[in-house]
């Protein structure tokens, strides 16, 4: 009687119970979205396999119509009595449907007042007497119960038969020919007993374990004679268990009908359970007179753990009337709906470790611990994963993103059978810059039953350890290789100690070999920096004058390592320039390799030990000239080119600077002396009276000594003796001797300069002549000057003329002439007697002269006379009277 395809036949054969749900599994419900998302894998530039997904396309399932109508009935009826034909129609389509119903007489005897009435409680009797022509709106899989009722015409005679054709059509009957079904009911007219039997249930639905559930089987003899040996049997259906001692009869309502015997007559009824036939309740009522009614009852318990289903139960009866066994007949079928109980268990998953940037898949086994098919919404809760971690839920295949199959906006598992498991795959994409670290990291997922949203379970996906971006900076060899120094990734080194110390001279470059090993799981690149205290900023930070240059293996200057594959390493030279004058001792040089992307970084502490450099220089050799009795001053610059203080004479660890002078012509009277140009005295750069003589060493005049790079100015003054011959050459050697060990470094060798002094005679001639003012006119020019002795009277004036002439080969410099007023005379400053000087002298000044008519000294300053030049001095005196 199935109207649809063989598939539907099979479904129905499985029973009403799972109809809706099974239909749902095979035939998508109307409006069900079917989503699809293509994907691809590919290899990126770093040889990492990546996944990419397309958009999601949704196809909505359209509605199809199908139905099933049950059942064919056979009934007895006396003329003028009602006959009842119970039916159930089930919507086997994938959407809601309102099914139209009709009942028509098929003859030969036609029932009158033939109508269809609803029978929601499925007791086989109309709920009311309002005829219907269609069902209410039925959800997919839902059933609708109704009773076809008609009256046997009073004119009918025993033995006549008739039929009723019952038709159910889906609402789209106009377009879908298959959506219709037909039942054929028959009846036979009798004048004997007609037992009308209906069955009812007090609890039509309940969850597994419900107890008690009472069935009531009501009978009425609507015939015209008694029925004897009226036997009602009821096989307890699967999924239910008979409750011992629960059977009753309305005639003796307080008497418990005994289960264990099928021969004990209890006031007209014999009852047994399981004796006559296993698993069956059997009632035999000895006699039911015409017009008499009664009922029997029994109770069952619904078995625990059974699937949601509809358990139908039909009583069967037969009797003897008119001497003939009649029946068996079926009562109406009473359903008990086993309600579903939701239950879910979600097991979390734990992964021991994963790399930053990895996609890790957690397998969470969800078990439907409920009694029926259920769909579970999966939601993500709070997470302690690193910021930037993304989560995505996948179906059991681990590849299809979990989508929303039931339209509530939440991804779900789709239908999961009772007791079945479903693997909820959650993929976590760890950010590429996740740091190394132990968690555990956890994210909570909640599985929520859509059948009963109050039923949930949670499972945590735990990642114990993340292998994050990581780098190990070492000296000389890659971490893990022989010769590597300073291993320990991510500043895990003990930076309290210096790993490598390079010795270096000031003004020189020293090279450290740095090896950067990418100990993280992904390719990465690292900036290289140097710092003097380990507090790295964004640029190199070294003391003033220090510089660093990083060079890769091919000698190119770099500031970043470039991409280093996971597990690979790259070697760099860090060239540190130490500026001149840097004092001795070790200085920290911290190197850092740090990824600007993942921020993974490592620091290694090295050092440059600056060597002690000792170097004193004195400059320079000079050449000078002087004249006999003259002197010449030579300048020397003493420089400390080392990097330690020299000459401070502070005892151990310091040095002395002493000076020695030697003249090659000391034998003929050349002498020399050294002065220190005291910066605080007079003019710097010139010998002045405040400049002290260097006698015992530098510390005596400069206690601090000579700092690195510092200079001191010395003057060597050489004196030529008066008798030095013309052309004599004296070499004055000044020797600087450094003494004392500093930082185990011995004093540098003594340094010397030689000043060469040549003696050049001036060959200056002086001619002094006199003349007497014989005519007493005060004019000297009318007198004759002579060098011979003259005679004069008291009161007369004597003129003196002094001629200074350079007959030498070189300039005569600094010429001064001293004279004085002779005894017994006084200076006559009037007329030509006034002291005067003329000629080529560069100065030609009367520097000093006595007062008129006084005695005293004269000083004449001529200055310089070139060869052959001369100056003439005149003055007069008067002989005392």
């Amino acid at each position: 009687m199935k109207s649809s395809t063989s598939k539907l036949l099979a479904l129905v054969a499985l029973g009403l119970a799972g109809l809706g749900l099974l239909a749902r599994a095979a035939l998508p419900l109307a409006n069900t979205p079917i989503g699809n998302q293509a994907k691809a894998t590919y290899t990126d530039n770093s040889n990492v396999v990546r996944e990419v997904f397309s958009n999601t396309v949704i196809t909505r399932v359209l509605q199809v119509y199908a139905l099933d109508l049950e059942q064919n009935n056979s009934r007895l009826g006396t003329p003028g009595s009602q006959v009842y034909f119970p039916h159930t129609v089930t919507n086997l389509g994938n959407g809601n449907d309102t099914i139209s119903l009709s009942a028509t007489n098929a003859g030969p005897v036609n029932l009158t007042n033939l109508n269809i009435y609803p029978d929601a409680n499925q007791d086989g009797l109309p709920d009311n007497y309002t005829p219907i022509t269609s069902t209410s709106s039925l959800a997919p899989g839902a059933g609708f119960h109704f009773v076809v009722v008609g009256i046997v015409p009073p004119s009918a005679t025993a033995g006549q038969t008739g039929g009723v054709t019952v038709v159910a059509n889906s609402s789209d009957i106009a377009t879908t020919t298959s959506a219709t079904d037909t039942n054929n009911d028959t009846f036979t007219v009798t004048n004997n007993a007609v037992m009308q039997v209906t069955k009812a249930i007090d609890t039509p639905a309940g969850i597994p374990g419900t107890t008690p559930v009472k069935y009531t089987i009501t009978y009425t003899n609507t015939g015209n004679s008694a029925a004897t040996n009226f036997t009602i049997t009821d096989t307890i259906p699967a999924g239910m268990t008979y409750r011992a001692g629960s059977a009753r009869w309305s005639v003796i309502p307080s008497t418990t009908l005994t289960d264990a015997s099928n021969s004990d007559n209890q006031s007209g009824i014999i009852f047994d359970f399981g004796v006559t036939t296993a698993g069956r309740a059997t009632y035999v009522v000895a006699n039911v007179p015409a017009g008499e009614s009664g009922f029997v009852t029994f109770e069952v318990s619904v078995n625990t753990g059974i699937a949601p289903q509809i358990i139908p139960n039909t009583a069967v009866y037969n009797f003897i009337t008119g001497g003939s066994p009649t029946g068996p007949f079926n009562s109406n079928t009473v359903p008990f709906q086993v309600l579903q109980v939701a239950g879910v268990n979600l097991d979390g998953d734990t992964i021991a470790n994963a790399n930053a940037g990895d996609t890790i898949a957690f397998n969470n086994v969800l078990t439907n611990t409920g009694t029926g098919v259920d769909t579970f919404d999966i939601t993500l809760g709070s997470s302690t994963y690193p910021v930037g971690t993304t989560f995505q839920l996948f179906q059991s295949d681990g590849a299809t993103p979990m989508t929303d199959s039931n339209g509530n906006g939440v991804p779900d598992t789709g239908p999961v059978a009772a007791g079945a498991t479903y693997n909820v795959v959650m993929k976590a994409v760890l950010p590429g810059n996740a740091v190394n670290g132990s968690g555990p990291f956890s994210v909570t997922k909640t599985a929520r039953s859509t059948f009963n949203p109050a039923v949930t379970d949670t499972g945590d996906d735990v990642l114990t350890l993340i292998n994050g971006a990581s780098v190990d900076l070492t000296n000389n060899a890659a971490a893990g290789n022989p010769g590597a120094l300073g291993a320990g990734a991510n500043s895990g080194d003990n930076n309290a100690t210096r790993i490598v110390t390079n010795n270096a001279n000031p003004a020189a470059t020293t090279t450290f070999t740095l090896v950067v090993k990418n100990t993280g799981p992904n390719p990465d690149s690292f900036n290289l920096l140097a710092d003097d205290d380990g507090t790295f900023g964004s640029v190199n930070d070294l003391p003033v004058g220090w510089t660093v240059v990083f060079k890769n293996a091919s000698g190119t200057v770099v500031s970043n390592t470039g991409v280093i594959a996971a597990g690979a390493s790259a070697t760099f030279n860090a060239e540190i320039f130490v500026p001149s004058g840097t004092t001795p001792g070790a200085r920290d040089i911290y190197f850092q390799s740090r990824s600007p992307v993942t921020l993974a970084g490592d620091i290694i502490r090295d050092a440059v030990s600056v060597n002690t450099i000792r170097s004193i220089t004195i400059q320079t050799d000079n050449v000078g000239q002087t004249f006999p009795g003259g002197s010449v001053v030579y300048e020397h610059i003493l420089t400390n080119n080392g990097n330690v203080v020299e000459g401070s004479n502070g005892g151990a660890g310091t040095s002395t600077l002493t000076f020695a002078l030697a003249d090659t012509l000391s034998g003929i009277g050349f002498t020399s002396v050294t002065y220190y140009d005291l910066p605080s005295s007079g003019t710097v750069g010139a010998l002045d009276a405040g400049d002290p003589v260097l006698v015992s060493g530098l510390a005596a005049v400069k206690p601090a000594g000579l700092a690195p790079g510092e200079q001191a100015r010395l003057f060597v003054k050489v004196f030529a003796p008066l008798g030095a011959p013309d052309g004599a050459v004296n070499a004055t050697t000044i020797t600087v001797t450094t003494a004392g060990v500093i930082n185990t470094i011995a004093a540098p060798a003594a340094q010397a300069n030689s000043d060469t002094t040549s003696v050049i005679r001036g060959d200056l001639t002086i001619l002094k002549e006199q003349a007497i003012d014989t005519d007493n006119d005060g004019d000297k020019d009318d007198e004759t000057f002579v060098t011979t002795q003259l005679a004069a009277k008291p009161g007369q004036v004597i003129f003196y003329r002094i001629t200074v002439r350079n007959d030498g080969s070189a300039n005569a410099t600094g010429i001064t002439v001293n004279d004085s007023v002779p005894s017994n005379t006084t200076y006559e400053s009037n007329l030509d007697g006034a002291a005067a000087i003329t000629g080529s002298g560069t100065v030609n000044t009367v520097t000093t002269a006595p007062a008129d008519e006084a005695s005293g000294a004269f000083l004449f300053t001529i200055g310089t006379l070139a060869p052959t030049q001369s100056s003439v001095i005149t003055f007069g005196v008067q002989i005392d009277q």
Partner: protein
Amino acid sequence: MKLLRSILLFLAFWNLSYAEPVAIKLAALKVVAAASPESAEKLMETEDAAPGDVIEYQAVYTNTSSSIVRNLVPEIPIPAGLVLLTGSDSPKAASGSVDRNTFSPLPLLDAEGRPLAPGLIRALRWPAMDLAAGQTVTLRVRATIPR
């Protein structure tokens, strides 16, 4: 729900900020059979399909980057509830899977060497290919909604 939405939003943002070099556009088209032997079948864009209808999935893979993409392995799933039309893959797929996890060369066979029911096949994969910058490849497969 709110959290999920924020995660999806974040995913969207993540995808934007790390632009994938491969873009995949998937379309579902209903196949309308030819009305007569002379006419051709039609592909209709549709969002609805009734049991018995045939859906053609067209996936267009485009290399949107400026460099070659290597070892691209396209995969089109057959959603649960649909039945693969055997031989409808174009170009011919290389392998198929019943669990989208393990892929085997086509045709898929059961333990006794018989062809597997097409309704069990949940995904097809195509041979690995290289896509030059800007290059596009279109893959097709058909499936039907069972009655």
